[in-house]
């Protein structure tokens, strides 16, 4: 009887401590100017993408040839493009493509990178093979490998996600592996082994949670890089194909009329810069919060 009461008390105390930790983390988060500015920018961009249908009465595909290349006005606040399509709605719907690629790539690479990183940190033989492969993959300049994969797969939004996931998974695996290697050597893991815990339980229940903070920080930077590379690929004509809007292919169209329509470059450009800057700020801030020991110089 006494024991159960003590256990109850114990779990109450535990949950209290956890609650307070969460509160404390949140307070520290609010004090971190970088993280707050970054997250505000990201939330605004995400809302812009999600609420696109409600923000504009034009569709991104509707062509009004009579209204070609109109400068920004009350009617079309970002102006119109070379086919007479409303630029504001193309940039807003383009946010869905660009942010969609970014978040998918961040998510897929996190999952794959977590699995690969943990396995190679735990099993030494696997480590040699997996890390040599990742060394090789990381030897490619990112945009070049992405172009090569896109050349093989063909220009489609889904293929951009596949290509960028292949390109960035090794970077996540590296980060997870180096965090996991440190955890693996700690006494509590040794204690678990002595108690006869299974490898799976040790890896997923005890090592994995401790690699999450560097993983999340890395995923934020990959989110930002994916937006840049998606825009680059679409700008080169090997990413998201027209007429579907993405920030990159709006810029491609804009380059064709660079003498006449500065707005076609300015608005999608600002969208890219803001979202990437927001993610980089958020990532820097998060890193300061989660991992105060690391160097402040980026990358």
């Amino acid at each position, binding site marked *: 009887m006494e024991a159960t009461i003590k256990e109850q008390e114990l779990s109450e105390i535990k949950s209290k401590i956890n609650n307070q930790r969460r509160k404390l983390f949140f307070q520290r988060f609010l004090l971190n100017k970088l993280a707050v500015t970054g997250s505000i920018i990201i939330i605004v961009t995400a809302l812009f993408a999600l609420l696109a249908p409600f923000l504009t009465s034009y569709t991104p595909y509707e062509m009004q040839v009579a209204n070609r290349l109109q400068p920004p006005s009350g009617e079309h606040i970002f102006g119109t493009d070379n086919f007479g399509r409303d630029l504001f709605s193309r940039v807003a719907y383009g946010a869905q493509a660009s942010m969609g690629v970014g978040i998918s790539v961040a998510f897929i690479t996190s999952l794959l990178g977590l699995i690969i990183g943990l396995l190679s940190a735990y099993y030494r033989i696997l480590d040699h093979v997996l890390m*040599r*492969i990742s*060394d*090789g*993959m990381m*030897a*490619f*300049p*990112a*945009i*070049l*490998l992405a*172009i*090569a*994969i*896109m*050349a*093989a*797969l*063909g220009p489609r939004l889904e293929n951009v996600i596949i290509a960028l996931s292949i390109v960035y998974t090794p970077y996540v695996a590296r980060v997870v592996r180096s965090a996991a290697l440190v955890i693996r050597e700690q006494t509590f893991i040794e204690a678990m082994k002595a108690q006869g815990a299974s490898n799976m339980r040790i890896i997923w229940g005890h090592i994995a949670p401790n690699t999450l903070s560097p993983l999340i920080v890395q995923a934020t930077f990959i989110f*930002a890089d994916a937006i*840049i590379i998606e*825009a*680059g690929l679409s*700008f*080169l*004509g*090997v990413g998201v194909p027209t007429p579907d809007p993405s920030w990159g292919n709006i*810029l491609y169209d*804009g*380059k064709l009329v*660079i*003498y006449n329509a*500065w707005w076609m*470059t*300015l608005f999608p*450009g600002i969208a*890219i*810069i803001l979202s*990437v*800057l927001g993610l*980089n*700020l958020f990532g*820097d801030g998060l890193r300061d919060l989660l991992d105060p020991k690391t*160097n*402040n*110089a*980026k*990358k």
Partner: protein
Amino acid sequence: MKVYLLKRILSLIPVLLVVSVVVFMIIHLTPGDPAAVILGPEASEADKESLREQLGLNLPLYQQYFSWMGGVVQGDLGTSIFMRKSVLSAIFDHLGPTLSLAILSQLAAILLALPLGIMAANRRGTLADQTFMGISLLGLSVPNFLLGLFLAIIFAVNLGWLPVAGYQPLSAGLWNHLKFLILPAIALGTAQAALIARMTRASMLETLNANYVKTARSKGLREQIVIYKHTLKNAFIPILTVIGQTFGTLVAGAVVTETVFNIPGIGQLIINSVERRDYSVIQGTVLFITVSYVFINLIVDLLYGFLDPRVRLENIDS
């Protein structure tokens, strides 16, 4: 030093192996029959068969790899189906503009970044330092092709100071050569400058705390000498690493920047080849750039093993 050199070179073998397999696999990633993809939907069965024969696509995969690699190690990257010349000569035809652009960007970035990074480190925490950190983060967040487009609109379209696009080789005169490269070089070099400047600042800050810097100061040496002779010299290794390691990124970035300014470099070669589905050129070019990149990194590593005796001693011990 010899042991270090040997170890470092041996470590390249698995990297190059993986790189070659990945590049080789590009053509096999295409959904369906590569010959049909290359020739388009209207091609006859006989044409497809002869192309399969020519590319060796009928052989087992490992045989294809070895025969392709056999050529590659002898400097034969294959033949462009579209241009009817060897891939290597196509690369050399386009290499000049890309190298010119990359080197010019790198020079501009170093000249801008070193003084700014040193200045920011000296004024740590001041408004100047914070402004510098903010601007450099902005520099890292603007993709080079976007900056290129903005610069082209401002300085070429509106002000008319420089040409919007195009290229002239160095043989057409220095100014004719440079005037086409100034905007692309700024576009490409800005992120590079931001990266180098941030590394300079971080490395300087770390070194400024060292005891020998305190000693130098307490001896009453002039601040200029303390900073440039005692601190910068020792802070230089990580800076050099960043400069070397990002040179490959710069060449890859040039691929995109070139497209903005219609410079007939490697970038144009790759993008045109993607449109023409000329896979041997895509494979050859990607392999060429990546292998050059790997070797540049090797040279940088060896260089700082040479600059800093601690690096080579550490590597022998371990």
